[in-house]
């Protein structure tokens, strides 16, 4: 027999002035099953809550209705009052008589009073069908998987590992470091990228809580938050890392030359190579696509010169499995291919290069020893034109979004050019200067004033060759004239574009991505590091274009999320989720197809009646279900119900008035 207690709140004058509360209480007392009803000035106050606690005990109440403000406001407060009185907190219902009655019917007290009575009647009817619910705890495997070993992945891995949580860091190339390792100096302070990055790379390699898997890729991810199982392919490196000392004899002697990806193809590397001198781990791998020994079975020079005998041409790809609780995706970015800009002579003129090629040239460990040179003749350029927004903010030829970093790195390039070639001059064609950030605007000013770079506001319409010079025709919108600049070299600030394998990775992980391939966050403002799939987080440019500080900040944010997830041995979850009654389930699996979280699996249960046969029914994974109720509404046999919003509760509300 239900014994419902109802507490009607005046909310000071908020409800009291527009609803006849004593009348409401009188009316409420007439409802069958209501054993106790009382009004109070502020039910949410400490004495108010104390009153609820006392009444529960004194009147042996079985459920509680608080008629007050919106449940979105104080439901948690009142639930706590219930549990403090030893009652299951989910036996509470809130009748929203403030937002839904007193505040919206201020000119009609009678109607507001009548409506309040109805809302209480509905809440009482619902509360009778309330069931005791208990927070769900899901076991957690305390190991994080970080995909991508760029600065974002490195930062996330270090932060998580510093909290003494084991991390597996998977990087597809032979060394961690990512795009940041390719940079020379960083804006706005011009500190050397390698100098600040390499200590962190070394930290990763030596951290007792980090398992570094270079030259590896994630191929499968099963399970759900706290309980994922990842399959990782360790690509064959053909070098035994345990014995290799990284002496470098092999790559010095290797006869095969291949364009060097790390230097954006400006120079050549060997078929056995370590991507750059500060690589971590500093062990070479053999590029199976180009090694003549692996292709034709002829050569074997590296094996002959290796004193340690570390070369193993028979090595195979290795599959390893890791049980993990959370994933941080930090796959970084690619440069957008500027081919559609034919008028810039992309691909036709050797001296039209991309910003990252320029970055490698001016880098001290780069292919040209830190001096920019013209790819056509090897001469040092004097006049260099920088064109911004190549691809970015161009719906017609490129992409709609702003790549965010180009304004800043172009200013940096102008300064670096001046540092490396003192008698040079930089011309920058720009649409706008977007320099929001600490010290950013000052940095652009520095490029303009200190180094004397000429900033021309306008788009370049054409580049043509005149002798060995490049003639750049563009508009200077500020003076409203067409200008022509004679340049030795043109640098295109090409847009940031998502890493090309992102869509494949997203499908593998079960997360979503946008039309470009950037991985989607759960909420653009309030959940920027989470994905819609619980336990998978995003860091760095894999989500959107970012500079280094932003990537690092987001990576640290993912670490905080991972640490919070792993803060107990189990995760606590709201119990308002769906569950299947296998007795009624006929196994049509239509619920499986509508679940947005892939939370529904199937299981085999005995047929019953002593039969040995089995039948298939749906089963909801408690760890994954978010409680939307999609499956409940489409289940024809009503085998699925949603705790807290059961069919019975809602029908009770509907028929209560």
């Amino acid at each position: 027999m239900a014994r419902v207690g109802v507490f009607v709140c005046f909310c000071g004058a908020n409800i009291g002035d527009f609803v006849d509360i004593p009348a409401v209480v009188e009316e409420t007392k007439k409802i069958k099953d209501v054993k106790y009803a009382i009004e109070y000035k502020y039910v949410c106050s400490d004495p108010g809550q104390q009153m609820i606690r006392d009444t529960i005990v004194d009147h042996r109440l079985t459920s509680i209705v608080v008629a007050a403000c919106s449940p979105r406001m104080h439901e948690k407060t009142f639930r706590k009052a219930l549990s403090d009185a030893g009652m299951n907190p989910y036996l509470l219902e809130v009748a929203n008589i403030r937002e839904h009655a007193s505040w919206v019917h201020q000119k009609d007290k009678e109607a507001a009073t009548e409506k309040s009575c109805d809302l209480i009647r509905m809440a009482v009817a619902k509360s009778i069908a309330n069931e005791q619910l208990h927070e769900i705890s899901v076991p957690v495997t305390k190991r994080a998987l970080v995909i991508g070993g760029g600065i974002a992945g490195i930062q996330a891995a270090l932060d998580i590992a510093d909290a003494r949580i084991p991390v597996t860091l998977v990087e597809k190339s032979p060394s961690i470091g990512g795009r940041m390792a390719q940079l020379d100096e960083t804006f706005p302070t011009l500190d050397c990228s390698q100098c600040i990055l390499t200590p962190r790379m070394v930290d990763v390699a030596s951290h007792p809580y980090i398992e570094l898997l270079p030259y590896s890729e994630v191929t499968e991810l099963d399970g759900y938050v706290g309980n994922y199982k990842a399959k990782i392919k360790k690509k064959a490196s053909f070098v035994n890392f345990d014995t290799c000392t990284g002496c470098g004899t092999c790559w010095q002697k290797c006869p095969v030359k291949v364009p060097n990806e790390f230097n954006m193809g400006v120079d050549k590397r060997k078929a056995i190579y370590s991507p750059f001198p500060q690589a971590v781990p500093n062990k070479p791998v053999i590029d199976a696509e180009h090694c003549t020994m692996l292709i034709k079975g002829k050569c074997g020079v590296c094996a002959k010169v290796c004193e340690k005998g570390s070369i193993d041409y028979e090595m195979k790809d290795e599959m390893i499995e890791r049980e993990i609780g959370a994933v941080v995706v930090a796959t970084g970015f690619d440069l957008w291919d500027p081919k559609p800009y034919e008028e810039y002579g992309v691909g036709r003129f050797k001296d039209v290069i991309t910003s990252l090629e320029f970055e490698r040239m001016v880098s001290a460990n780069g292919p040209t020893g830190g001096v920019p040179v013209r790819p056509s003749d090897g001469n040092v350029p004097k006049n260099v034109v920088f064109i911004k927004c190549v691809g970015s903010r161009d719906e017609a030829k490129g992409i709609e979004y702003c790549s965010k970093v180009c304004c800043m790195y172009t200013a940096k390039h102008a300064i670096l050019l001046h540092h490396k070639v003192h008698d040079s001059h930089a011309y920058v064609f720009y649409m706008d200067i977007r320099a929001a950030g600490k010290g950013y605007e000052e940095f652009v000013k520095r490029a303009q004033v200190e180094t004397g770079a000429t900033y021309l506001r306008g788009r370049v319409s054409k580049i043509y060759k005149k002798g060995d010079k490049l003639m750049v025709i563009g508009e200077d919108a500020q003076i409203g004239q067409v200008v022509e600049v004679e340049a030795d070299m043109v640098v295109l600030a090409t847009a940031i574009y998502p890493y090309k394998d992102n869509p494949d990775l997203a499908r593998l992980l079960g997360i979503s991505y946008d039309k470009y391939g950037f991985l989607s966050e759960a909420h653009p403002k309030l959940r920027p590091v989470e994905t819609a799939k619980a336990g998978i987080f995003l860091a760095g440019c894999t989500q959107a274009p970012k500079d280094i500080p932003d990537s690092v900040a987001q990576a640290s944010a993912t670490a905080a999320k991972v640490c919070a997830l792993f803060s107990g041995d189990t995760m606590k979850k709201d119990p308002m989720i769906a569950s299947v009654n296998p007795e009624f389930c006929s196994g049509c699996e239509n619920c499986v197809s509508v679940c947005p979280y892939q939370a529904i699996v199937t299981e085999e249960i005995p047929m019953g009646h002593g039969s040995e046969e089995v039948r298939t029914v749906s089963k909801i994974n408690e760890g994954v279900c978010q409680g939307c109720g999609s499956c409940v509404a489409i289940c024809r046999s009503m085998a699925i119900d949603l705790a807290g919003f059961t069919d019975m509760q809602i029908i009770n509300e509907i028929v209560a008035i």
Partner: protein
Amino acid sequence: METELKDKIVSIEKPAIEAPPEWKPMIMGILCNWCSYAGSDLTGTSRIQYPPDIRIIRVPCSSRVDPWFIIKSLQAHADGVLISGCHPGDCHYISGNYYARRRFLVTKKLLNFVGLHEDRVQFSWVSAAEGAKFAQVVAKVSEDIRKMGPLHLYKKENTR
């Protein structure tokens, strides 16, 4: 026999003039927690006034709404039903409102086909920021229902 039966039947949609003077419409509102319920709260917080005919039920998502709830509401006492959820693309649960949208269209058309005025059951997308829109929606539904009068859904007399 045939004529006898006809005489007994009270049409579902009686002309509005037959409404008793004390009649007040009862609209069952089923709102999703994340957008429309929050929006209706905002209507209250902003003190925007609307007709007092709606009784609101909170559900997690518009996809939780089984067409059965609509049928049940009409079969119980409601003169009309309003269902509201997040705008397409804004669903807190990614895709719930898209599934719901299909069911709502079919349910609405079916109810109209068996003799209910199509404005008896209405749907809206109201975001958490659209407090004013929620008030407008309720005002419209309320006005529509008042025009139509009480729903005599196979009740020989209106018991409410």
